[in-house]
């Protein structure tokens, strides 16, 4: 699995929301109590699974900017559970568009967004529990709440061909 690059992610998200976004790669991050949002992808042509985990405030910032909400309003709306439809739909779209940058190998197709890791099932569930690779990023968003963003992926299976 070719790793997503901070440069590629920075460029994509900056273009998507029209504000300066900066992804900085870090070493393993400690789990926090911040609520998380998960995006599940299938990477073609090898049909491998890839999962993105992002802090809710971060995904909320991306989504809120897309639909024209200020930071303070986003924070108020994210405090309400369940997440309102407008922000939820926008977060879904953010994760969909992110498919262009979450891997540099193959073609990632966004499958679904979940708010509870218990719903990461099938091969994605296996990869999430025991990934071959994790990429950690700290993300800042100009004028908005930033957060952490992690990509869980698996190596491309190698087929041995015998003569």
């Amino acid at each position, binding site marked *: 699995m070719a790793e997503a690059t901070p440069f590629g992610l920075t460029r*994509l998200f900056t*273009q*998507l929301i029209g504000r300066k976004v900066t992804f900085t790669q870090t070493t393993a991050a400690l789990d926090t109590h911040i609520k998380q949002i998960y995006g599940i992808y299938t990477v073609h042509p090898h049909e491998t699974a890839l999962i993105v985990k992002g802090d809710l405030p971060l995904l909320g910032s991306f*989504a809120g900017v*897309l*639909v024209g909400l200020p930071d303070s309003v986003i924070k108020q709306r994210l405090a309400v559970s369940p997440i309102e*439809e*407008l922000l939820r*739909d*926008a977060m*879904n*779209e953010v994760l*969909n*568009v992110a*498919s*262009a940058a979450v891997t540099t190998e193959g*073609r990632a*197709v*966004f499958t679904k967004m979940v708010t509870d890791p218990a719903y990461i099932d099938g091969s994605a569930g296996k990869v999430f529990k025991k990934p071959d690779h994790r990429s950690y990023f700290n993300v800042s968003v100009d004028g908005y709440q930033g957060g952490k963003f992690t990509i869980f992926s698996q190596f491309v299976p190698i087929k041995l061909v015998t003569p």
Partner: protein
Amino acid sequence: MDILLVDDSRTMRMILQRAIRQAGFRGLTVEEAENGAQALEKLRKAQPLLVLSDWNMPEMSGIEFLIQVRSEHNAVPFGFITSEASKAIRELAMSSGANFLISKPFTPEDVQDALTPILSGK
């Protein structure tokens, strides 16, 4: 109806409406559909100047929608706006009768460049 916007994401339809205005196309009537099947129904009732469609949608995908439109001998200009932007997808879109494909994320300039040849003077 001047433009038919087809996308299952309400957010993306909202962003596209904004991008069309930012690209300088104001005063156009834009109708929306959530998937290819719904869009096909609208197309059978009225002919827009342009169809802008997502690729991945429930019920009927963008490419299935385009193939159906062309099979009904409808030559309406048709553009995809999608996160699916690989060479193979682009080639499939064009060989099926699409006029252009804009990959997400896009800028108002991308929208302007794609729409101007079709909508200029309208």
